[in-house]
């Protein structure tokens, strides 16, 4: 990844420092949780929090080293260009919405809209193809999972109404 003045974006160093800090915070949460569970060596051997406690400590310690190494590193390249990140977010945000509404709308309706959106906006397919895939896939899923293998999937008001 070479730096190019016409392309801007967050630096690799900054993002990596951020990720490392997040990992350290995760380690701190693990340590806190372990202390609550008991970290000493009880009558029945190590208590529930014994191992997680040291694992948490290890996470914090190695994050500190990684942070130091990362900041010391002379690499000042980009993590990614804004345009690339926009691409990534154009998948992450709709998927987040998809995942978020699933408990309320059920899997099938959400999937139809999600697949349809993805193919239409990112793939620029014509509506008939979009409709065929977006509706065909959930139907196939329904048949395979719920009818064939008897695995119930999340359902919403529409399925309720259809009596599925």
């Amino acid at each position, binding site marked *: 990844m070479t730096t190019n003045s016409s392309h801007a974006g967050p630096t690799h160093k900054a*993002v990596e420092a951020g*990720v*490392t800090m997040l*990992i350290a915070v*995760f*380690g701190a949460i*693990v340590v806190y*949780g372990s202390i609550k*569970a*008991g970290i000493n*060596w009880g009558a*029945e*051997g*190590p*208590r*529930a929090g014994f*191992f*997680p406690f040291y*694992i*948490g400590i*290890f*996470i914090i310690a*190695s994050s500190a080293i*990684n942070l130091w190494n990362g900041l010391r590193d002379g690499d000042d390249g980009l*993590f*990614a260009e804004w345009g*690339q*990140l926009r*691409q*990534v977010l*154009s*998948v*992450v945000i709709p*998927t*987040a919405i*998809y*995942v*978020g509404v*699933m*408990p309320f709308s059920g*899997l099938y309706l959400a*999937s139809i809209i*999600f*697949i349809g959106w*993805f193919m239409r906006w*990112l*793939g*620029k*397919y014509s509506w008939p193809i979009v409709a065929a*895939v977006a509706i065909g*896939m959930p139907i196939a*899923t329904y048949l*395979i*999972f719920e009818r064939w*293998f*008897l*695995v*119930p*999937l*999340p359902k919403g008001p529409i399925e309720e109404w259809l009596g599925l």
Partner: protein
Amino acid sequence: MEELVNLFHGFAVALQPFNIMVMILGIVLGVIIGVLPGLGGANGVAILLPLTFSMPPTSAIIMLSCIYWGALFGGAITSILFNIPGEPWSVATTFDGYPMAQKGKAGEALTAAFTSSFVGALFAVVMITLVAPLVASFALRFGPAEKFAVYFLAFCSFVGLSKEPPFKTIAAMMIGFALAAVGLDSITGQLRLTFGSTELLNGFDFLIAVIGLFGIGEILLTMEEGLAFRGGKAKIDLRVVLQTWKEMPKYWVTSLRSCLIGCWMGVTPAGATPASFMSYGIAKRVSKNGKNFGKGEIEGVVAPETAAHAAGTAALLPMLSLGVPGSPTAAVLLGGLLIWGLQPGPMLFVEQKEFVWGLIASMYLGNLVGLIVVLTCVPIFAAILRVPFSIIAPLILVLCAIGAYSVHSSTFDVVLMLVFGVVGYLLKKCNYPLAPLVLAIVLGDKAEEAFRQSLLGSQGSLGVFFSNSLVGTIMVLGLIALFWSAIQEGYSRLRPHSVA
């Protein structure tokens, strides 16, 4: 000789038209189960178990074990094509299988995976046929300390393999251990790291983490680089099978070693997952192509697949002869045996000859049928990569969501999957290796459990890990593997410094 006579009798049972039909049906169902994330071998067999109720027990077990073979075969498909391992033992297959697919060699990778699966399974079945009683008594020697030693060896033979900075590897592995620790602590029966949340009761399931980290993370990386899976040019031709076959005999040493590792892990019963990781790790160490592992080396597909299948098959032996399952799927099959009124255990081989040998014969035939079925489908699977990204990506995302949901029937897991996806993307971009993280999630709690069980038994003395020749040997092997990598790494890190 009596075994051979029994085996031929078994073939006669397995070759009845109804049983052959059941066998093919089972393989096809199994492949579907293996391909769909979330269903998986154990779930698939459990779901279909009640349907076999009205069959005679021999046909029923043939069908279920064929589902098992099918799922083992099918697990490799998504690992290679989309970097999504549907089962823990397919994780190691992604390391080289997915890069091969990216280079347009999906057909070769699939062929190598299927063929080595077959070789591994065949080796294990031969072992079951010839030395079943001997091996069963070996499995009895495995208590908690021995099991811990095996996990220890699996970790040691894998640690230090990554090119990434060592402290990032440590951080990644420790994150995996921490995630594995969430939920109920099985030794004290106490909840830990759940912070009062009922969603976290289940802990972090391997499958959800792996679908997110590997599958979703990969889609995000692809998005960043523009909309295309890089495997577009995959050849879709059956000739690819023959070409790959010509190349495979070169790796007979790796195959044989992986078979042995697999059989050992399956019988002990530590299972297919440590087997595949251990086999991959050792192959990388000793192979002369070792440094190319991870970039799409066919040997890196052969090693884990052979071991995983050998272990998966060998795991049925302790199930039949001892009643202790070597894998989650074997546990469900075991339940099936009991439901049909067959008691697995030492007497099964004596009292239910027709059943046992019918099953063993079906292992030979089922694997052969399975190999033929999946190999003929190689071009179809490889062709999936030709579907444009903006069609296949939403379908994969939806299937991933279904997979994550069906693990615990919980929509919270679907959210977790997406979080893991973003985390996977960030970690990968920041040079954190994901394989040690996943290995730690899969084996972390098992290793901890075995460790603490051992200490309970020894009343806190660590000497238990060197208390007999068996556990001592495995531990020493583990330590050698650990320090070998440390020495190697220190050596290779010293050299560039001295040059600079």
